């Protein structure tokens, strides 16, 4: 398995673990459906992005050190055209999922659902979109771009 494939698997795991851990602690003792505290929802979404970025950086550093120790294989020092293309395609997949989720979340308000449904929808779109992007990256490295 190549370094990039291993890195993609680590990204998938860190995304899932990071998201579950963050939401578990953030939503403890909160009435999710009834909450009308917009400040809470806004800060939850903003901190989610921040926490995920920091968590991922830490996981990547640990992965890089462990991988070098175990396999004696150095991290690729640059990204070439295939890496950039895979990154672009994976990001595009994220956008597709997120846009669908965004409009579905707005749709909840058209059907008189509680406002929290919209914010939960935004967060789910980000979580699922992120996972789709990570799986796409792994799949593109595994099966190619043809």
């Amino acid at each position: 398995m190549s370094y990039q494939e291993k890195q993609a698997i680590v990204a998938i795991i860190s995304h899932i673990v990071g998201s579950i851990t963050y939401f578990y602690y953030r939503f403890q003792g909160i009435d999710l459906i009834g909450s009308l505290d917009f400040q809470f929802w806004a800060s939850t979404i903003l901190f989610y992005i921040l926490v995920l970025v920091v968590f991922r950086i830490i996981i990547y550093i640990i992965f890089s050190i462990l991988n070098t120790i175990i396999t004696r294989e150095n991290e690729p020092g640059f990204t070439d055209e295939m890496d950039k293309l895979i990154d672009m395609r994976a990001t595009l997949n994220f956008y597709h999922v997120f846009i669908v989720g965004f409009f579905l979340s707005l749709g909840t308000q058209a059907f008189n659902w509680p406002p929290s449904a919209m914010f939960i929808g935004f967060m789910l779109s980000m979580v699922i979109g992120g996972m789709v992007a990570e799986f796409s990256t792994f799949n593109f490295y595994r099966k190619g771009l043809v």
Partner: protein
Amino acid sequence: MSKLRIGNNIRKLRFEHHEMTQEQLAEKAEVSRQTIVAIEKGNYAPSLELAFRIALVFNVPLEAAFFVENENQNN
């Protein structure tokens, strides 16, 4: 418009050039070994620039390194 499938002779060219390794070719073409592996397997069609760079490493014309596969089936 049907998509053309690009084949390549990179494995053969590496063999003819003193069994050049994928790592050596990747270094000379300034890409990662993973990219060379993907091109050789037919999992990635390189850009025109990279295709020329690979051909230049072997000092052969572009069409000696890359060709169109199954052209009749796709038309």
